[in-house]
């Protein structure tokens, strides 16, 4: 194991935890938005595929070590340590291995992967080549949500270009390594983002989640060892191999290292995607980068709709956006999709929308989700919002939630409870008003306006 790059910096500098830190440079999105950024020519002119050559030079095990040392955690939502996950793949078992890129990005509030896919596809391809090499996989699939037509086209062109340039296929860059990469388009189902459902979908089956164990690293796609990572995770791997584990670990907090793509939606001056070090505060993201709210706010969804709401207050705004701090604040970093909810919008109505989303996206496999959420919870919310609420309704929703939570087959049902339980906890008075007085605290308003 010859990690040619010694991890012995003199005195460790203070970690970077602000996008405004003069040392911080965006890398994942460095080229997003630039003309022709999606072409191989552009990518190569900007140091493309050099990380791959470094990886080949280091050896497969050293690549996994490098990723471990970088402190990278999965960017798909759960935040599992990437290097550790890669090391679960069996070595020398003589079986074909697969790696899959989870480009299903369907968590409401998330839109970071989309631009990585359409604007910088080679960064992902390079990351998958590196990962494939590290995990002895010679075939990779990118499972992209069906609606990302534009991104899929760009990606397909990029794959073809890479193949023509000898970067994909047999004997990549004369390394003796074979790596094939294929695109597989989904067709509209949120559950396909769940890794085992994704594998079923890729196998042409109904996208119901599978039983675990066996875990994908033991028996995944086609029953063979498989590792699935998010788009951003693979792209971060490219940057880690380029700039080093130490560079990556120099950003963020003790347990949440590196940079993260944060997305801001809702009525702020400049919604969009911002690449910031983990540990940046909500306040910096929302005010300095996104230009601040356009009206009075009451809640923040910190990481996609599955994450419990947080109250819009100084405490929340000053919370650093890293896995641990947000967890301590009662929610989750999730995908980093931050949505702000205005004071004047009925929280029960907004939650109804989210519950309806999960009900619509329930795969139908297990009872608590299919019946509890899809059939019942959605109607409880409809009843409340439509002014037919009754005094016991909120209590009933809480009791149903207790009967659903942790009892479902996969995490989708629990995800639905994120907004439900947090909105009841934070804004009980809005619920009570609907349940007892059949009147919303914040009546519907026209939000469709020319700006």
């Amino acid at each position, binding site marked *: 194991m010859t990690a040619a790059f010694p991890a012995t910096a003199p005195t460790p500098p203070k970690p970077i935890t602000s996008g405004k830190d003069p040392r911080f440079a965006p890398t994942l999105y460095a080229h997003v938005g630039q003309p022709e950024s999606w072409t191989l020519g552009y990518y190569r002119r900007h140091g493309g595929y050099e990380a791959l050559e470094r990886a080949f030079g280091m050896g497969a095990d050293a690549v996994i070590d490098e990723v471990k040392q970088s402190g990278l955690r999965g960017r798909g939502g759960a935040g599992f340590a990437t290097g550790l996950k890669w090391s679960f793949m069996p070595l020398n078992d003589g079986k074909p291995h697969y790696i899959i890129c989870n480009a299903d990005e369907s968590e409401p509030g998330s839109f970071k992967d989309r631009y990585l896919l359409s604007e910088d596809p080679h960064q992902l391809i390079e990351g998958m080549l590196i990962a494939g090499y590290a995990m002895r996989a010679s075939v990779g699939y990118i499972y992209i949500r069906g609606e990302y037509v534009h991104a899929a086209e760009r990606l397909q062109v990029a794959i073809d270009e890479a193949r023509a340039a000898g970067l994909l296929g047999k004997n990549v860059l004369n390394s003796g390594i074979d790596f094939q990469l294929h695109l597989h388009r989904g067709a509209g189902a949120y559950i396909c983002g769940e890794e085992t459902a994704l594998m079923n979908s890729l196998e042409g089956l109904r996208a119901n989640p599978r039983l675990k164990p066996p875990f994908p690293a033991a028996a995944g796609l086609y029953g063979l060892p498989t590792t699935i990572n998010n788009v951003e995770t693979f792209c971060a791997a490219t940057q880690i191999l380029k700039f080093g584990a130490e560079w990556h670990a120099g950003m963020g907090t003790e347990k949440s290292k590196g940079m993260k793509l944060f997305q801001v939606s809702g009525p702020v001056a400049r919604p969009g995607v911002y690449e910031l070090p983990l540990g940046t505060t909500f306040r910096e993201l929302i005010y300095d980068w996104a230009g601040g709210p356009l009206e009075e706010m009451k809640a923040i969804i910190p990481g996609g709709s599955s994450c419990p709401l947080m109250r819009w207050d100084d405490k929340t705004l000053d919370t650093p956006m890293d896995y641990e701090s947000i967890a301590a604040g009662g929610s989750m970093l999730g995908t980093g999709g931050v949505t702000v909810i205005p004071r004047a919008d009925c929280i029960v109505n907004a939650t109804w929308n989210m519950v309806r989303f999960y009900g619509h996206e329930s*795969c139908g496999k297990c009872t608590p989700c299919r019946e509890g959420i899809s*059939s019942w919870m959605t109607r409880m919310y409809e009843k409340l919002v439509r002014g037919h609420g009754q005094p016991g309704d909120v209590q009933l929703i809480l009791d149903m939630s207790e009967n659903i939570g942790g009892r479902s*087959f996969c995490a989708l049902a629990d995800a639905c409870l994120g907004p439900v339980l947090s909105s009841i906890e934070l804004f009980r008075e809005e619920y009570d008003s609907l349940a007892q007085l059949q009147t919303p605290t914040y009546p519907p308003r026209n939000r469709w306006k020319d700006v």
Partner: protein
Amino acid sequence: MKVHVDGVELELPAGTSAIDAVFEAGGDVPYFCAHKYLSPVGACRMCLVETGSPRKEKDGSFVLDDATGQPKIFWFPKPMASCTMQATEGMHIKSARSSEVVAKAQAGMMEFTLLNHPLDCPTCDKGGACELQDRAFEYGYGASRFGFDRRHADKHYPLSDFIILDQERCIHCKRCVRYFEEVPGQEVLDFIERGGHTFIDTEEGGLPTGFQGNIADICPVGALLDNVARFRGRNWEYDHTPTTCTLCSVGCSITVDARNGRLERIVARENREVNEAWICDAGRFGHAFASERRLTVPLVRVDGELQEASWDVAIAAIRAGMTRHNATDLALYLNADSTLEEGVALEALADAVGSPHVDHWPRYEVSLDAMPNGAATLSDVATADAVVVIGADLGEEAPILELRILEMLRGGLLPPEYAHGTAIADLRLVERPARKPEKLAVIGKETRLWQHAGIRASSNGHNALERLSRPDTAELQAALKLLTDSEKVIIILGADVLNGASGSFAAQLSELATRTGAKVLAIPAGANSKGLAALNLVPREGGLPFARVADAPAAFISRLDPGVRARGLTIVHDSHLTATARLADVVLPAVTNYEKRGTTVNLEGRLLELEQAALSAGEAADLIRTLTAVSEALGVRAPVRGLKSAQALAEQKLGLRLGELPERGVIHAFRSSHVAPTEQTHVPHLWTERMQPSIQTLIPANLQPLPMLGAAPVGGDD
């Protein structure tokens, strides 16, 4: 391994699921989606339990609880589905018996399960035998807080002539979908849509006949129902008779449900060693004959016409008819699905009167009992490393054998057995199991099994074996290689090779078996041919085989329909007025095998019991009683005068104890001592016309055609 269930420690084999651990401890867990012979999927979430396990330190020692000094139990924060959880050493499990959390979780899940379920129990055929109804009573809240309109869907949706679906009642356990995919290997039924809109449907224009009926047994609710038995009775009104199917030589365990003397329904009964939990569609739905157009009184030909008569008159008619014959002229023929006891009785009568013309039909001319590696059992087939099927059409000859072969292809994992029965959740079974078609070679005509076989060779007749011994094509070479190279191999032989097979065939087979180490399973021609062949029920010196019944001076023909009469006195013993019965001089009413007590011997050589279902059959009698009457007419003392004496005689002749057999039967090494030429070939044909459910039973009363249109053709055995 030691596991603690509700505070009680018990020792369990490794691999036990948490749900089986609870049952083994004498506890109970409600479940809907788990099924003994299907992969556990964890879909219904009813089987929640609390579990906790000890943890180990890095050095391998247990993390100890400071207070007690015992290994500390780390409980999962949430209840877990016990059907998909493996019990492990030192695990603690709490069922509803000892956990409030579990009791609440199960009641909550029951409320969800019942949310969209219609309150149909009073008109549902499943009522009284419904897993949902029972469990809701035991584990539910007793009331739903839902308060919205239930999902509405098609309540009378025929999936085939045999199975009707009520989409509103479905609780999405997926048993039916998994069954088709995992057991007969057919992708013919699946969920459509997703989430709360999910429903069951097929796009095949109907379910394939073969094994579809099993889904009515395994559906935990009344969503999938036996359409033949639809609205025929409530479960508590039926007389349930556990017995054995004798439509073919597999001998599946079944329960016959009768009401008001009619056979209304047949359902599968578990027999781990024979049919597991499955039966074929013929065995399930093909019972129309048991209750329709039965012959209930003897008939005697008077002035050329058959007229109803009493048994005494019939006996007198036989006596009168026999005055023109010697008793030794009376040929005695019986159906090879007759019980061993009946066979013993007939053999004894033949001995007593000295008639050389004795035969049972169908049968083959060869005895293959003395093969070198012993007889193959169905469990051997299911767990074999390779199977070579030669000249068999299993769909016609032994359908469940086909399922056992398919079980072999998907790994041959027989679920373990506990004191509470077969494992409820065998975690080795997986959805969409990998199949190994290369383990199966099929030689012969193209059949349903063909599509599952990795090696297929077309061949005709009994030279298939010879060709296999000296393969002349790549496929046959591959089949021989499979036989030679695999450890545990079975050769299955069917009618196409067994018809006309002789001693040289047996020698050749024996040689092949010795060379390859294979066990041999020859499918008997009739349901009890294997048992009857152990008796002297073939033509004796100078006797006429059944094929020559028309040449017999006089004949007694039990439940066979050759369509011709003997030269002289012709006595037919049958349950229906068959073509032969119409030609007879005396017709004696017979009971069907559903109304008999006795013993049958299946293709493995397994003794299985028949029980008597309460069907109305008037004065019909089984063969033993009928032969007593015939003896009386012949003026001889009947050597066998009832079941007990037949069993005593069987014990004497065959060294067997009959009666009070264990439920799954016992295997006996039969030696067929008597072989003789048959002079005809046996064409296996499982579904006979009289088994077809009549039109009336398939069409709801309000849509019934005029009675005269509904009448099916009368008689006809084949």
